[in-house]
């Protein structure tokens, strides 16, 4: 496989540095304090993969025709919505992603509900949770923690065994 690496970039893009410089250029000289933890929790799944019910979490928001797509508050709060049928589009323009290089018209590129349904159909996983969960990307770690507790409650209601989280 041919590498796409410029020899000047020996490894993956450093987004923490990139965004710090980007916002400094806009006159924000107090850099964002990214979450950092020494200890990391770890649990092994208690069911076989072929029997597991998989939940999925997205940072994107539900698409609404009546919302100004450039308004960051359009993302709203945490939410749970049905996985069948899978949404045809999601609201993404309020988030930080490379809109010059790519697009988010194919929802499965970041919320792969069709792909998960196919894996369930093929017996590769037990099932897909009846709802997917949305958690907006927030400046505040404390608000994100509250949203995490909401996702936990929904996942328990939906009897989810494992969770796939996909930040855009």
């Amino acid at each position, binding site marked *: 496989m041919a590498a*796409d690496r*410029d020899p000047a*970039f020996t490894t*993956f*893009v450093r*987004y*923490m*540095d990139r*965004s710090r*410089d980007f916002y400094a*250029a*806009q*006159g924000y000289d107090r850099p964002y304090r*990214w*979450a*950092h933890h020494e200890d*990391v*929790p*770890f*649990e092994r*799944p208690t069911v076989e993969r072929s029997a597991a019910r998989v939940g999925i*979490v997205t*940072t994107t928001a539900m698409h609404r025709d009546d919302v100004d797509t450039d308004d960051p508050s359009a993302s709203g709060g945490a939410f749970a919505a049905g996985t069948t049928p899978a949404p045809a589009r999601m609201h993404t323009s309020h988030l*930080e*992603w*490379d*809109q*010059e*290089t*790519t697009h*988010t018209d*194919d929802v*499965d*590129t*970041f*919320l*792969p509900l*069709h*792909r*998960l349904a*196919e*894996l369930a159909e093929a017996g*590769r996983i037990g099932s897909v949770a009846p709802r997917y969960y949305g*958690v907006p990307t927030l400046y505040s*770690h404390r608000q*994100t*923690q509250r949203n*995490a*507790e909401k*996702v*936990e409650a929904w*996942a328990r209601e939906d009897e989810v*065994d*494992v*969770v*796939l*989280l*996909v*930040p*855009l």
Partner: protein
Amino acid sequence: MSLVARHLESVGIPTVIAGSARDIVEHCGVPRFCFTDFPLGNPCGKPGDAAMQTAIVEQALDLLWSATAPRTTVQTPFVWDETGSWRTRFMRVDEETLPGLRRAGEERRAKQEAKRAARSPG
């Protein structure tokens, strides 16, 4: 999103993150991370490429059962394009973009200031 994974894991629900911002996720510290070295926007595969999307989702799910310790990162084998030109494009700061960025920052602060003034009477 990493904080959500950490919370779920801490209450007994195993998690895996599929994403493209490796430094941010690993800096936070998460149980399992399936990294695809793509521009931000399509962490589960290229638009229209269902086979790639399936491969990435499968690799992320595999990690749930194969990882034996936290902070386990795997990288999927996919390359966005041969040029790699996307790597320098996003959030680019140089002579060309700097004046526009300064202006955007000033405009945003003015807007926020106006909002604050409207909220506080007198």
